[in-house]
């Protein structure tokens, strides 16, 4: 399994033809207390760079863009009951959705953990 990061502060775990997507620890830290996550419907076709989810704190709503294109096969229903998972465990239990990968080439150019860390350090 490989983990990639985007400059929009999302992480992507790739396993075979499927990917799991969430937001990074850095992102949750910036957003503050997360109160709600609006997830895509299962079956939705996501296009890279287009709206995929919305993550809300008390006074802000931030769009989460699809890091790669594909069809949503599962959404993390646990976030409905407990959006705080995104704060407490953003890079595991707080995942957002899984999708089938439409085009593996879209993974090219994404960052690995080390590159992402230095990206954040420079912000």
């Amino acid at each position: 399994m490989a983990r990639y990061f985007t400059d929009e502060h999302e992480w992507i775990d790739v396993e075979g033809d499927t990917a799991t997507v969430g937001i990074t620890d850095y992102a949750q830290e910036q957003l503050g207390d997360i109160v709600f996550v609006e997830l895509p419907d299962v079956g939705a076709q996501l296009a890279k760079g287009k709206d995929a989810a919305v993550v809300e704190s008390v006074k802000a709503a931030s769009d989460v863009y699809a890091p790669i294109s594909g069809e949503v096969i599962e959404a993390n229903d646990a976030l409905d009951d407990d959006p705080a998972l995104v704060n407490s465990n953003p890079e595991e239990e707080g995942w957002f959705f899984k999708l089938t990968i439409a085009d593996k080439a879209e993974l090219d150019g994404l960052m690995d953990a080390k590159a992402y860390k230095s990206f954040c350090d420079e912000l």
Partner: protein
Amino acid sequence: MRYLPLTPTDRSTMLATIGADSVDALFADVPAEAQLDGPIHGLPHHASEMAVEKHMRRLAQRNLAAGDAAFFLGAGAYRHHVPATVDHIIQRGEFLTAYTPYQPEIAQGTLQMLFEFQTQVARLYGCAVANASMYDGSTACWEAVAMAARVTRRNRVVLSGALHPHYAEVVRTMAKFTADTIADAPPAFQARPDDDGLIARIDKETSCVVVQYPDILGRLPDLERIAEAAHAEGALLVVVNTEPVALGALKSPGECGADIVVGEGQSIGVGLQFGGPYLGLFAVRDPKHVRQMPGRLCGETQDAEGKRGFVLTLSTREQHIRREKATSNICTNSGLCALAFSVHMTLLGEKGLRQLALENHRLACLAAERLAKVPGVAVLNESFFNEFTVTLGRDARDVVRRLADRGVLAGVSLGRLYPQASALAEGLLVAVTETTTEEDIDTLCAALTEILA
């Protein structure tokens, strides 16, 4: 200039602090050609309190107040007795001159009241959640249509032909700009609402069906049947109520399966006020739809010491955060009218509201019975609450005008509401509330008898 506390001495002291020579210097950013050279010409100058009051009183006296006539108007605005306590409370400065409760630590009065109001509305409508109010019933109706499109991701709206024509017109106006299509029907002039015709227009593309209960002619549609038909096609049922007192006697729309219930709250506490400000009520039956709701919501929470308190919540739906992605552009509610509603509803309580509803219905039945005996008059409705339709055998607009000259406000002619539908021209909507006396009913009957003879 009694509202302006600064003295000439204050003004010069302050200008010195600011470092400006004159007040004109403060307006230096306004281009010279846009600056006026003094008070706008041709307009009156300031006036004393006494003079203004006299002027306003003279204008008010040119109106025939409902209380000074035998009065039977309804059609979305009803005259009910408002207890004196209501007006006293809403004139307390802490309510009247407060702002939107954005600083909850010093706005618990407004916030707790809104929480109570939301609960009262939700219970009256048989719903899970109500918002903190909208502008009025007609705009709440449009917002419900827009919300149904967000929930169902469909854009075809089926409007009952017996929806208040002004409400329908608001929906049609807005739909022109949002690419919603409207499946409309002309009002059918029958003893019963055309539920079958309405159901036949629901299809797989339908986002919502909008039904008024009681409808514009005062009749009662079978909401449960319509809800079932709507849900079978994946559409939402939006029920519009313009007379909340009716729900003291009738099954609630939520209980009948309505998904969104909206209405006009003016009957409880607000008064006629020539059409505004009124009080838009908005509720949803299923709590999962809350995040698609428009308007302010007040929620319970606790403070840093663990004491119960209330805040405006789920604000990320709203324009000040979401901007062009907000569920609505609405930025106010009808706060003071919501307070009036809540105070009046608290005074009534369940017992009072039920008594009020029964009294309205009893008097309306009496009026229908007596009007039916006037030669030339026929009562259209099979069912009604406190408002029904009669036919007069001639253009009702003319009859209404002639009765008004005699000091009788007989009702709302259908010709006024439906100028294009000549088939309805003989119809008159008659509303009867607890403020109507038997003497008023007899006055109306006698005047009608003379005019129709």
